[in-house]
């Protein structure tokens, strides 16, 4: 059976061009980049090339690019590293209620260590309010961390405006841009950010490699101490193969950004119109315009998300849900609750995220089957409209 993969926000297949770039670093060019002999120098030179490719993709200097093992590590490092470095100055951090767990759980951990965290609410489409932010800033605020684009509902936050406000106050500003890269333009200079997290596996690179952009000169504590790698900021023998892969993936993502955006937007709108037009009691979550080009997130009243996912999986479609039933926890998605959905409704969410290889036929197939699946599950549901 042909599979239709519509979970590109969870992870993307690795681009064959990217795999090709990796292979030599798993075979002949295996040297340790810290070694001074030929094998080591070759590896070192290569990773500096990849660093430059990523720097170019986000308009940074290559010396501002630090490789990590994931977007999660980048988030942890940014938040804990800034907090620990500045704890003498202040212990207050501002973030939002809809951040990725890597940010939220890092903040919660810091709360246990004596820090105070303000979790800004969002409106019904998932936007943080600039007024709320201004009001939350205190004399002892040392860090603001607001994500660039939300992974569940796709809402794009006003990072440039937030950056301006935060900069004026002289506070450090971090943004999690894991979902942004490859989907919308990312320019660290334009955005006024000090720190920015990225992850390769969301842009057709491999899993297990991320980046933290750290603005030149910004003091930050290390998260992983040890050897002198990454200009003494992040220890561990460099993951050369995946670093090379990330470099290539970032290059491809920038080169094809315009066409990919157009492609995704067209299909996304086809999907949204199809679903909202053909399925009763369906709603779109997130902002109608300020949303990632590939993201569609729906709620269907009276049914539960995992049942939708399983039904889709059986007919070859891969999607995801904010239902608690899919996560092993008892609470439904914190993002859907934050935009004000009642828990019962949040359980019935479905996220479909489009990628480079998605076609219009795929979308047609999905919409038509979804109509039937939702009907069947509603017939089975004890809750009903009257």
């Amino acid at each position, binding site marked *: 059976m042909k599979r239709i993969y519509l979970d590109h926000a969870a992870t993307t297949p690795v681009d064959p061009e990217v795999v090709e770039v990796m292979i030599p670093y798993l075979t002949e060019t295996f040297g340790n980049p810290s070694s001074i002999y030929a094998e080591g120098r070759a590896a070192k030179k290569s990773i500096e090339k990849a660093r430059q490719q990523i720097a170019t993709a986000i308009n940074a200097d290559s010396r501002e690019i630090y490789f990590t093992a994931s977007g999660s590590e980048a988030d942890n490092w940014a938040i804990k590293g800034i907090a620990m470095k500045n704890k003498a100055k202040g212990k207050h951090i501002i973030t939002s209620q809809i951040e990725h767990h890597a940010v939220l759980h890092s903040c919660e951990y810091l709360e246990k260590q004596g820090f105070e965290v303000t979790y800004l609410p969002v409106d019904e489409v998932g936007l943080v309010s600039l007024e709320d932010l201004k009001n939350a800033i205190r004399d002892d605020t040392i860090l603001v961390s607001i994500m660039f684009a939300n992974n569940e509902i796709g809402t794009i936050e006003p990072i440039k405006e937030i950056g301006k406000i935060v900069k004026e106050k002289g506070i450090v500003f971090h943004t999690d841009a894991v979902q942004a890269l490859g989907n919308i333009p990312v320019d660290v200079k334009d955005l006024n950010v000090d720190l920015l997290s990225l992850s390769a596996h969301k842009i057709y690179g491999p899993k297990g490699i991320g980046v933290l952009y750290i603005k030149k000169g910004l003091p930050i504590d290390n998260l992983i101490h040890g050897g002198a790698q990454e200009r003494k900021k992040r220890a561990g023998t460099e993951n050369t193969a995946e670093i090379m892969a990330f470099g290539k993936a970032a290059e491809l993502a920038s080169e094809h950004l315009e066409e990919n955006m157009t492609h995704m937007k067209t299909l996304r709108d086809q999907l949204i119109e199809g679903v909202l037009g053909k399925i009763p009691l369906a709603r779109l979550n997130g902002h109608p315009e300020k949303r990632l080009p590939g993201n569609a997130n729906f709620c269907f009243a009276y049914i539960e998300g995992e049942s939708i996912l399983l039904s889709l999986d059986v007919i070859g479609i891969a999607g995801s849900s904010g239902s608690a*039933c*899919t996560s092993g926890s008892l609470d439904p998605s914190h993002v859907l609750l934050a935009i004000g959905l009642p828990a019962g409704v949040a359980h019935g969410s479905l996220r479909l995220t489009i990628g480079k290889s998605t076609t219009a036929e795929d979308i047609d197939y999905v919409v038509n089957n979804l109509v039937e699946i939702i009907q069947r599950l509603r017939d089975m549901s004890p809750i009903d409209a009257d």
Partner: protein
Amino acid sequence: MEYTDVVMENFTCPKNVGEIEDANGVGQVGSPACGDIMKIFLKINDDDIIENASFKTFGCGAAVASSSMATEMIIGKSIEEAGKLKNSDVVDALGGLPDVKIHCSVLAAEAIQAAIQDYKNKKA
């Protein structure tokens, strides 16, 4: 999380879906906030034998499969026997459930007990 083939069969082609018009025992457990509601309909004859059982469920794959399996397991049984059905019996019949999904089978057993209680209350 990995569902067995039996779970998937019972999810994709569930038995006994829907309402029984003349049910004389109906039980519902769970809440929408928790993401799971299970409603069981029983048609019980004068000898206290369950002639027919059906369900309506709002929940995950395991919840639907548990409902389907549990109703299959009690049809033809006396209410006394059916009341003794344990969630672990349902899990065994399904060939196992992931740890995080055990509570879904608990709902099935509880919904059946609630339906039997409803029948007893009405009779009394």
